[in-house]
């Protein structure tokens, strides 16, 4: 079900400002890939170009190509809505819909798209997705309560359940644990480990331990200075990246000797 991502020589601009320059990499299906790098080096920017979410920001545009199983995301006539149904996204801050109950939040992808669904189908999807996000036991008795009444970590897992309910091929996560306590973080890391069976996962993180714990491959981004574009410095197996990277900057960064 999951798919391979291939990026060829991608540049990302905010109006005239070149934020990310010349990124090429290949992400294999059913792997977890971690993006690491200092603040402002363009990790979020690059991640968003993998499902065209950067287009929500006025002035943002890309050059180059992103292929998902050989289909160019930026080809002529490609509908970003269809892209996003295949490539889901979880954001840094949990953002459940405040007008919807927990159950409706999980079904949001279907409900907002006016998809017809019988009650039992809906209930099954809710249970399956919430179990998939390790949240079912905590919320099964209050599915009709507002989603914003959950704790931050529960909200984030609700957002993950919401993302997997639309059954995407790829899930992008932008610092999904940065607002969470160590226990919720661990719950989400375990979850990523399980989700790997079904999805291709890309995760941005500032936490080196997290990157080394959950990911198979790691990409290190860096900038030469403020106002300069971010670049992909090194991309390799996570064990290699953390034990003997081939670039000095990577070693400095992962060992905390940076700057």
């Amino acid at each position: 079900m999951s798919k391979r991502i291939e990026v060829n020589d991608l540049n990302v601009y905010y109006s005239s400002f070149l934020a990310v320059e010349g990124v090429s990499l290949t992400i294999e299906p059913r792997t977890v890939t971690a993006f690491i790098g200092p603040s402002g080096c363009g990790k979020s920017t690059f991640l968003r170009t993998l499902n065209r979410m950067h287009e929500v920001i006025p002035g943002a545009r890309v050059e180059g190509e992103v292929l998902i199983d050989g289909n160019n995301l930026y080809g002529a006539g490609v509908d970003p809505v269809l892209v996003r149904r295949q490539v889901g996204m979880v954001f840094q801050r949990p953002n459940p819909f405040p007008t919807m109950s927990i159950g409706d939040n999980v079904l949001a992808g279907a409900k907002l798209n006016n998809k017809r669904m019988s009650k039992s189908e809906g209930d099954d999807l809710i249970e399956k997705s919430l179990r998939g996000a390790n949240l079912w036991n905590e919320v099964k008795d209050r599915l009709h309560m507002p989603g914003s009444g959950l704790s931050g970590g529960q909200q984030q897992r609700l957002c993950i359940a919401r993302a997997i309910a639309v059954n995407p091929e790829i899930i992008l996560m932008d610092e999904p644990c940065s607002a969470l306590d160590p226990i919720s973080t661990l719950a989400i890391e375990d979850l990523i480990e399980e989700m790997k069976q079904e999805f291709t996962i890309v995760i941005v993180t500032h936490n080196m331990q997290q990157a080394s714990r959950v990911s198979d491959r790691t990409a290190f981004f860096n900038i030469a200075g403020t106002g300069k574009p971010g670049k992909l410095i090194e991309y390799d197996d996570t064990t290699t990246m953390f034990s003997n990277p081939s670039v000095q900057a990577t070693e400095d960064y992962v060992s905390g000797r940076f700057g």
Partner: protein
Amino acid sequence: MTMTTTKAPATAMPNALTSGKLPKYSPLWLLAGAFALSIAIFAVVDAAGGEAFNWAGMAVLAVVLFCVLIWLISRLVEGGRKATDRLVTALVSSAFAIALVPLISVTYTVIVKGVARFDLSFFTESMRNVVGAGGGALHAIVGTLLITGMATLISVPIGLLTAIYLVEYGRGRLARGVTFFVDVMTGIPSIVAGLFAFALFALLFDDPGIRFGFGGAVALSVLMIPVVVRSSEEMLKLVPNELREAALALGVPKYLTVLKVVLPTSIAGIITGVMISIARVIGETAPLLIIAGFTASMNYNLFAERMMTLPVFVYNQYASQGTDAQAYLDRAWTGALTLILIVALLNIIARLVAKFLAPKGLR
């Protein structure tokens, strides 16, 4: 069993964090004192001058006295920072009280004078064939409700869609142009809106004496649309961008995101804004005088014949008093009271609706 108790030191150590503090209700006592002093002063002065007691002067002097006293006393007891705090609190509270004076005065006057004719016949009869006492304003109440209702029907779709365009879609020159013209529209004097509607329909139907309710609704819409646009725009902007992104990232098209995420999240605020805009136009007199005209009879048809409205009714009763002047004045006051009650009722409904629709569990 031994128990270790920490005994209070024999000589109470002064807590380094305390400072002098006025007793809790001292500002109130001081205020009462200031008023007593001021009343005494004015009683003596006015009596000496042989004039009537000057209430306004007394209140001003009392407030000034209070501000000076509280600042001085607080400065002596509590120090400079607290004194400034007390002074600013006093000033802010007096500003609030001053703002309340006209409101209370108007409400009081309208209620006292309007209650005379606040009877059944006022709400069940028109002014047809009435000279002197009696009659009612049913025709005006119906007219106001019909015309304002129609104006709302016209303004809300146009205003709300404009706001959605500006917040969700508008970029560049067109959006800036629309914003500019909405701003300009906000400043249109109501009489100009009335003349616009009159000129429009006089030309359209080639009738230089045209008067009908729908024209009034169009004139009110001109005044109402910018208010609706402005308030809805503010409410839509309050919806966090994260929610839009969350929906888009689920593969929801933009129009469904707006329709099913943005609007439901902001609907309570939008309804409040619409109610405010209704309150803004329901009391308009000048444009309705021009294009809806006035009449003493019932008229349920917006599209033909003159139609009375409450503000015009009030104006008319006052402007053309008959021989029994008091009957006309009483009707005018009751008309004003009815108008205020309608606006108050609308506000209460808006609050209930907003409360009912507001996203739950937030904040």
